[in-house]
């Protein structure tokens, strides 16, 4: 089939990888460049945390998340990204004065899914054994079977892979005005396809009137003296931050680790993504002073050696969300729309794409 995918962010890329396996011919449209750096999926920390997300999400997110975790390894192998996925568990902790936050967190999880009963409680000794650089904390929860995808490298590797395939035509910097069944409208011109996928995210507002952008902000740190290997969340009465390790970069690869950053990485140093604020505003202006103070003071309290870390980059972006914060799939004749993955992009994309394809083009 001759297929169009409009929007080549995270969902568009996962769609393309899936459809290529079935031998389809693809035309990819994106209003920005194909490197994907303007997509929300490029700003993401790429957390795979179906349990931890339950604090504010519904159990459907949990089910899709578990499925995505099964699907990611094959997707990443396909594009040659062999070290872009880690599933060694995540850590949830809080300062001693905020223990009620931990109790509230675990209570909410247990209320929502029975599996949460199995989450392991760590005392200081057990925590230090697992993550020696979290020794400042007395108590934590350890959620096995959670982890992360190296979001930035996924975006780049997937982009390069798709670019090299002869079945793929990539039309970047092309604004699609409207999408209808089997049709893509560009500057009053109509192009016909056997099937069209709408993966435009916030660009699809002409169709989804209830779509909104939720601002998120992240800071990239480079630290020589800190070795935290698992994504770690610090619960606090007012802001919840996560620290996601990004390792030492691409060994032997000539792809820059982060397109935006101009600072070359010190050999042996490690990078961490610090996020994530949630601001109800469709605003992609640079990181605010208030947010940076919250994020940095919180990360400093996780381990004071972060005081010597270098700030290599800050990024802001907006995630597309519907009012219920749940993803939405719309299937009709020759047309599939996927949107509203909100803060759960990497957690949901493979499972939602699989579901959308099974209910639509393969249905």
């Amino acid at each position, binding site marked *: 089939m001759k297929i169009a995918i409009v929007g080549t962010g995270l969902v568009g890329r996962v769609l393309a990888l899936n459809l290529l396996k079935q031998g389809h011919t693809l035309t990819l449209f994106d209003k920005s460049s194909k490197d994907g750096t303007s997509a929300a999926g490029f700003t993401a920390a790429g957390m795979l945390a179906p349990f931890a997300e339950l604090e*504010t*999400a*519904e159990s459907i997110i949990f089910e899709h998340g578990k499925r995505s975790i099964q699907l990611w390894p094959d997707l990443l192998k396909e594009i040659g990204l062999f070290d872009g996925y880690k599933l060694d568990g995540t850590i949830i902790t809080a300062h001693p004065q905020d223990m009620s936050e931990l109790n*509230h967190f675990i*209570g*909410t999880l247990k*209320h*929502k899914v029975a599996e949460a009963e199995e989450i392991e409680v760590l005392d200081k000794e057990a925590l230090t054994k697992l993550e020696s650089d979290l020794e400042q904390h007395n108590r934590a929860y350890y959620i096995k079977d959670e982890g992360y995808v190296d979001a930035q490298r996924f975006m780049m590797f997937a982009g390069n892979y798709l670019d090299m395939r002869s079945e793929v035509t990539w039309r970047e910097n092309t604004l699609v005005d409207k999408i209808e069944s089997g049709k893509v409208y560009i500057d009053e011109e109509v192009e016909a396809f056997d099937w069209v996928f709408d993966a435009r995210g916030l660009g699809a507002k002409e169709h989804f009137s*209830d*779509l*909104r952008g939720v*601002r998120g902000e992240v800071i990239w740190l480079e630290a020589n003296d800190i070795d935290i290997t698992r994504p770690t969340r610090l619960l606090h*009465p007012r802001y919840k931050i996560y620290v996601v390790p990004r390792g030492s970069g691409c060994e032997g690869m000539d792809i820059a680790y982060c397109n935006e950053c101009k600072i070359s990485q010190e050999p042996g140093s490690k990078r961490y993504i610090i996020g994530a604020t949630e*601001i*109800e*505003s*469709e*605003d992609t202006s640079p990181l*605010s002073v*208030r*947010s940076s103070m919250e994020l940095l003071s919180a990360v400093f309290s996780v381990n004071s050696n972060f005081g010597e870390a270098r700030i290599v980059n800050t990024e802001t972006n907006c995630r597309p969300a*519907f*009012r*219920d*914060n*749940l993803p939405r799939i719309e299937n009709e004749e020759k047309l599939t729309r996927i949107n509203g993955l909100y803060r759960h992009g990497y957690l949901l994309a493979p499972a939602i794409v699989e579901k959308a394809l099974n209910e639509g083009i393969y249905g």
Partner: protein
Amino acid sequence: MTKHMQTNENTWEIGGKRLSSRLLIGSALYPSPANMEEAIRTSGSQIVTVALRRQSANVKAGGDFWNIIKSLGIEVLPNTAGCHSAKEAVTTAQMAREVFGTNWIKLEVIGDQYNLQPDPFETVKAAEVLIKEGFEVFPYTTDDLVVAKRLADVGCKIIMPWGSMIGSGKGLMNPDNLIAIRKQFPELKLIVDAGIGKPSHATQAMELGYDGVLLNSAIALAHDPVKMADAFKYAVEAGRLGYEAGTMQQREFASASTPTVGTPFWHQFNEEV
């Protein structure tokens, strides 16, 4: 909504508006905007507080969130959450007046970064300025009687002492202080703001004769915010009705409300003291 709440005698006036619900509700911390919308509707509340974070002060940018708030069709009470000085609070209030088109402002000046305890000195200072500028000020304060006096002195018609620290869910830490403020200012509108954790806390505040209760976390952080909103609706009504009905005097001895003659002894142990 039950019948008695719809009758005219059970409406009340605050900030120039006549309302029936005495529950003021916050709009933060819900799992999703859709859940917030349903919880607020279920609560029957007619006043919703909205934080004007400076980052989202751009109405156009924050558009969809404000649209949801507006679509509720109830009074919006913007707040100055996150301000640490009178000057900052006044600026935020002025911005809020433009954004929301209301002269109502929940004045919140924080004096301690960690427990968010209000700064009484800066709050009084800001209240004075805002009242002169024509705002209807809803000041959030501690349960200190003298601070309440100062706020009344500068012209506040509404005072909102805390039950306990914001977000703590500990309920009414010091009911005697709240009673003292109520007795001192029978003519002012008094709202217990912050610290409410359970429906019974809200009932207790209303039983003290407070005009209303303002809360957010207790509903938004419940496992089921919509159900908890329903619970608070009834809790506030129950407390108000209890206050209006006039509670009996406590006694220092047991007093059976039914004659003990002919009552099996195991029932007698259940009599309330």
